[in-house]
């Protein structure tokens, strides 16, 4: 899903967080078309560490539709 999600949302860490890196939120669909929300951190070697993944919640609907328009079509 991360591979074809064309738009990533960089959210700043909360003020009281212990990890100061931007939170990267990906909104898109898995291979079955199930809408997902995935949160990842970028590591020092450029790889992504996925922290959280679940079915997309309604709160992200607007951003999900925004991301749809940017989806990378194989």
């Amino acid at each position, binding site marked *: 899903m991360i*591979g*074809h*999600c*064309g*738009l*990533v*949302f*960089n*959210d*700043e*860490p*909360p*003020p*009281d*967080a*212990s*990890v*100061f*890196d*931007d*939170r990267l*939120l990906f909104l898109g*669909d898995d291979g*079955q*078309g*199930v*809408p997902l929300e995935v*949160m990842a*951190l*970028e*590591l*020092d070697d450029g790889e992504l*560490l996925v*922290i*959280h993944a*679940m*079915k*997309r*919640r309604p*709160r*992200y*609907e*607007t*951003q*999900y*539709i*925004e*991301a*749809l*328009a*940017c*989806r*990378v*079509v194989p």
Partner: protein
Amino acid sequence: MSRRPLRTKSGHELTAEDIAQLAQEAEAGYDLAHAQRRRVGRPALGESGPSPRVNLRMDPVAYGRLREQADLADTSISAVARGLLEAASATDASAAPTQTVDRAPTAMAPQHGSLAHEFARAVLLDLRESGSWPSSDVLHRQIARTLGRDADVSALLRSIPPVYGYAGHGGPSDSASLTIEGLVECAQDTAAEELKNFIIALRRMVEIDDEADDDTTAHFDDAELSKLVADPRARQVTCLLLRGEGLLGSGSYSREGEGWRFEIVDLVRRIGLVSGPEAYLARRRLVTSQDPSTSLGAPDWSAVQAGDSGRLSDEQGRLLQVFSRTVARHFHDHAEWPKSKPVYRRLGRELGRDVDVYRVARAIPAEYGYAGDGTREQIASVSVLSLWRFAKDILTDEFHAFLRAVNLMVARDDAASERTHAEITSDELATLTEGMASHKKLELLLDREWLFGSTIGSEGGVTHEVADLVHRIGPVATIDAYLERRRSALEPPVVEGPQPPPAQLDAAVRALGRTESLMRTVARSPASLQTILDAGSIAQMVASLSAAQRFAESISQLALPLVAAYRQTDQMVAFYQQAAQMAALLPRMEIFDDMVAARAAVQQVVGSPAFAASGILGSQLSVLSDAIARSTGMLVPALGGLGDLRLGVSDVAAGWRRLLEAEERLMPAPIAPALLVTGGRGVLGVNLAAGAGASVQLDVGEDVPAWEGAPLEMRGALLERLREIDDVLPAKLEGAWERTLRPGPDAASQAANSLVELLDWSLRRATEGVDLVAWHAQQGLRSDGVDANGRPTRALKVRYLLRDNPSGDLVEAFARIIGEAYGALQSVKHGGRPGDPVVIQRLIPTIEAALTFVLVR
């Protein structure tokens, strides 16, 4: 084997606790309104950095050959072209084919037409390549390369007419876009494929809408589109074009793997089946035109005198028959009036695609019925006149009960003493409803005919006040007799001298009086506020304002033909007839004084400490605000041609504005977005919205006491202060107003962008040269003053600017208001689908108020 520790990009070594905390944080969710957007997914082609994009145009034949090559090699056109270009550039630069310059960049005159073509071509190519609208900075750079260094690209692109598209401000977060009109006018040959797909999709949407039930919302989904447009990229482009035209409503992604799914909006139905892009544009211009002379299939009602139901044309009769029978069937089956939307759909089906139902239904005279606005929020209802004439076979039992009820109410009125109101209870009405499942239908019919004065809930039942109109109608034996008696009872007097006002106006005045009374009671007893001023009582206020709205309908029905007749001197007879009816209504214009008094009472309520502490009525007040806006919105067009009568209307709007300003000052924390929106309906919002709709310039400072002009003076001070800070800031504010008052396909996003820049720039420039971080550390303020990158936040800037203000709570409140407003604007700006310009418009006064508090000394 030990695993290498995980380090984030910033060098932080992640522990299990960190990861658990991160997971918890992600599960709680993020507020992405402030999040940065970053395009990803197109990795660089080599090791030497980002891969620049090359856009070039090709002869269609050569393009066809290129496509064939790509198909044969099972690869993309880009890959084939890339290989050819790399090979050519690697062998011998001098052997490269001679470039044909079909337009000398520096010689290109910055004329409107050629610029628009260049703009359309650039946006289209990028759209094809990426499947999304290009960012504005990319577009600006592309055009700059074409026009040369001497051209002021930003200024030139701003001159692109909004009907063609939007070039953006040149920033990376702003997207450019094209309209269908832009494609047709500026790039029709190049965009043949896109236009074809657009029309195919639109036609299918119309068919789906036709096939949908009256009560359900039609949807258009990915599966449908994939049957029509096979290529996934082309499907994306088609979706963007449909969305840009406002033809897709709210959407969501199906969990069943069927792809996205969007609501088909009413505009699709109104446009109907079209043969091609030009036909689409022509039809769209017709249905969105404000000019009544362009209406499609709307009967001309001006020749029909009030109550003269015997002289309906075939067209009018057909319309009323479909309308009345549709409403009557629902009323019979469900004991309630139907929602407006399914009625519109049924009318659309029955009347055919050549008729613009939205204009036809709204033009139905009030005496025949009210079709609503075509949404699910409003209901449609039909008068007994129309029901009897067109649907008597459907409502036989109801008509019998109705006659019995009228006669009982007449008898009750006759028996009442002169000093008391005659009343009738719901239980008594229930005894008359033989053959009917519920007495509710009877009450709805009586209420629709204005035979009830008011409804009073009491222990053990509901009591209705018998309206004066019942007395004037008297006992009747048949529905025909009732209709005749009612018509003569309502007929406007044409003789000189004081005359009794029409009953419905009386009812409207009484309804407003009850609202005023209720609110005065509440104001006197703030302690009982929580129990009295609940959602139900506010609903009652809304209902009473609806009565005012019906009054507005009457005024509208009379005033519009009056103005039309006045302009045609050869219709003087009609003019005098209309003028006589109007004259009968004029004494009741004092109704607006009642509304202003009611508003004053609301202001008292809202100003009470108990209300400020509750903070739970934002959405209900929003409903109330809508009701006032609707009433005003109907009145202003009606009175647009009669200048002297506008004052009362603007007074109502000004009163409501003051009420909401009072509410803003008392806004409890945390600030709910609904309250922000409600507040935004205050300063000038109602006036300007209503005035814009009627092309009427409402001057709120005209003939009003000095204290009413104070808000305008305050606004002037804000503009002056903004100008001091930076000359461009007032233009940002005015630009936002301008975009919301002249909406286009991307108006909300553009207005939001202007406001974001206004907030950002004004706070930044006002604190320029100040070491805010040091000040923050020195003051020992809360931790949200500095962001993760060590930069001062907007809240910190507000705190600094208000550092001498003794009202600590208010400082924090305005810091939050600015934060909430900024977030809301960002979400519209980056929302990816058209926002509502009206919502942005209503937010502007809140931003003006906040900046006034923070910046003006």
